[in-house]
């Protein structure tokens, strides 16, 4: 087991394309860290740099105390699980799992014991003599995981391992991997573009965009305290409503006025004085769909918005209401009884304690 430390890591591809820039992070021993971001944000490149499959252009990468910038992949003591399983089609499940151990010339008896032990954990005992072709997607991914585990490496790298599975299996495997992490207590670095996967699995999330880290924090804090507009939009489903507003001061206090209504700002948001210089200026207002509520459940500080329903989507326990207030498009997550037909007018309450305000220029969160 080992920690992984990135110091000013940089990756530039031939042709000058910068994939990762100024990447600083410390992953502690036994931590489950998820690198998350949209396609092309540099998350897979970062993972591949840990594996040694991509050369590092600049900075220092440590595995434990050891600088591994130029260490060959096989000498790094890491295991990697790929999106499309990367199983050898001509080898049986047993041989695929034993692949790394055989290459390291481990005695046959120990290989058999280790593979059988891991097969037991992953429920693969019955499949050991089958070839990958005869396995389902979920079983194949378990074999790939088995191959990674069997060698007992210092760290596990997982590159979108669930992307090829259907939704149901993905949820199931998500739980399996999380359980496996608890069981092994090893360092896991997991790459995904799926924020739900990231939120549910990681101890800490690293949100990336265009090669830069946007924020590193626990899922809860990323959700509650996003550092900027990008993180706020990326984390949470449905994504946060963001729209232009002007902060206006009146005798009743400060409000955010937007096309479609106005929302009072609670004293808590104004307490640190960060918003003082923005009074009278345009900002970006963020409201999570979950911060809307029905009139009969009014929170302490709330604002009301009158809106027209465009669409309502029932997703089991709740309903997503797509509404339009003035020219502002909003999505609200509400109890199912709030379901309404397109064209209907609704009056929605917003919990103003949960408003987010972003700088229009820098997109950083002000409050």
């Amino acid at each position, binding site marked *: 087991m080992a920690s992984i430390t990135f110091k000013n890591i940089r990756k530039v591809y031939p042709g000058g394309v910068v994939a990762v820039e100024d990447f600083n992070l410390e992953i502690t021993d036994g931590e489950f860290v998820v690198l998350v971001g949209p396609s092309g944000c540099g998350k897979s490149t970062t993972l591949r740099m840990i*594996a*040694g*499959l991509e050369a590092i252009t600049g900075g220092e990468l440590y595995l434990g105390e050891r600088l591994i910038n130029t260490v*060959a*992949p*096989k*000498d*790094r003591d*890491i*295991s*990697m699980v*790929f*999106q*499309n399983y*990367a199983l*050898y*089609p*001509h080898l049986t499940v047993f041989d695929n799992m034993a*692949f*790394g151990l055989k*290459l*390291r010339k481990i005695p046959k008896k120990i290989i058999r014991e280790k593979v059988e032990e891991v097969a037991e954990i992953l429920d693969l005992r019955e499949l050991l003599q089958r*070839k990958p*072709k005869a396995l389902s997607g979920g079983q194949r991914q378990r074999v790939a995981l088995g*191959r990674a585990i069997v*060698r007992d490496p210092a760290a596990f790298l997982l590159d979108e391992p669930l992307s090829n599975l259907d939704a149901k299996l993905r949820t199931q495997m998500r739980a399996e991997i999380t359980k496996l992490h608890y069981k092994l207590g090893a360092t896991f670095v997991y790459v995904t573009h799926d924020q739900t996967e990231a939120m549910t699995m990681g101890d800490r999330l690293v949100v990336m965009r265009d090669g830069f880290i946007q924020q590193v924090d626990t899922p809860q804090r990323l959700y509650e305290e996003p550092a900027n507009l990008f993180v706020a939009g990326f984390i949470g489903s449905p994504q946060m409503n963001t729209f232009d507003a002007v902060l206006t001061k009146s005798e009743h206090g400060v409000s955010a006025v937007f096309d479609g209504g106005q929302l009072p700002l609670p004293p808590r948001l104004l307490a640190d004085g960060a918003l003082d210089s923005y009074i009278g200026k345009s900002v970006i207002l963020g409201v999570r769909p979950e911060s809307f509520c029905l009139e009969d459940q009014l929170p302490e500080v709330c604002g009301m918005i009158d809106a027209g329903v465009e669409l309502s989507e029932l997703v089991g326990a709740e309903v997503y209401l797509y509404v339009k207030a003035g020219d502002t498009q909003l999505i609200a997550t509400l109890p199912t009884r709030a379901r309404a037909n397109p064209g209907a007018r609704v009056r929605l309450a917003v919990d103003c304690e949960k408003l987010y305000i972003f700088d229009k220029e820098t997109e950083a969160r002000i409050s």
Partner: protein
Amino acid sequence: MKLKERFDRLNDRARDRVSGFLWLAPSFLGVAVFYIVPFGVIIYYSLIDNPISRNFVFLDNFKALFQNEAFKLAASNTLKFSAVAVPLAVVLALLLALLLEARIPLKSQFRTFFLSPMMVPVASIVLIWQVLFHYNGVINEFIALFGADKIDWLQSEYNQLVVITLFLWKNLGYNMILFMAALSNVPRELLEVADVEGASPLYKLFAVKLRYLSPTLLFVTILSLINSFKVFREVYLLTGDHPYEGLYMLQHFMNNIFKALDYQRLASAAVTLAIAMVIIIGALFIAENRFGRDVEG
């Protein structure tokens, strides 16, 4: 009109079948006239005494063929040539493809260089090689600079060496391109897993890459085998009807007995060659099916 009525009365499936046959008919006619029927006639000719009396003699023509010294020489030369030239053409092309797959400078220039012999017509190639390997040619002049004796390249033990070099020069480029295309289709993740798990480059080549290359290996081997029989064209242009003993190939033999209008011997030689080819190619197919079974489809 009657035919059309009958066609209209057919159900959909039968109608599809009839129209399918009709669409295939022109090509089938061509293949039949130029391949299937002549092949049948050749088999028939190999089993009769002569085209006039047409007495059935069963395998007598084949017995006579196997006792013929010229045939034995031609068969043995062809076998020797193919046994050396074909593996070389496959292995060297694969090595070149692996080399060009790596990050080396002037990669595209090398690729063009190896492909360029394909663009040169055979007659021009032969002319160049005559200039190179003539007794008073460039190569002899060159080795004379180092005090070595001149070699009569095409009329001595070295003749097969010359033809093998010519064969490789002509065929390596195309084989190499086929291998390069196949190499680019080897799943990258499988090689990366091998890297992470600690496999050596040789292990990766034999245990991973060759598995995925097996259909191409088969194709390149068959292609090279066929081309090795076709080397007659170059040899004939270089040395004429009766070359030095070591270059007397099966096609020389067939060409000469065709000129002598000995149809029975020609037919039995052709059938023997066809049987040999079917056995070799069949064996290659079986081997490829076993080796590459899991990586295909």
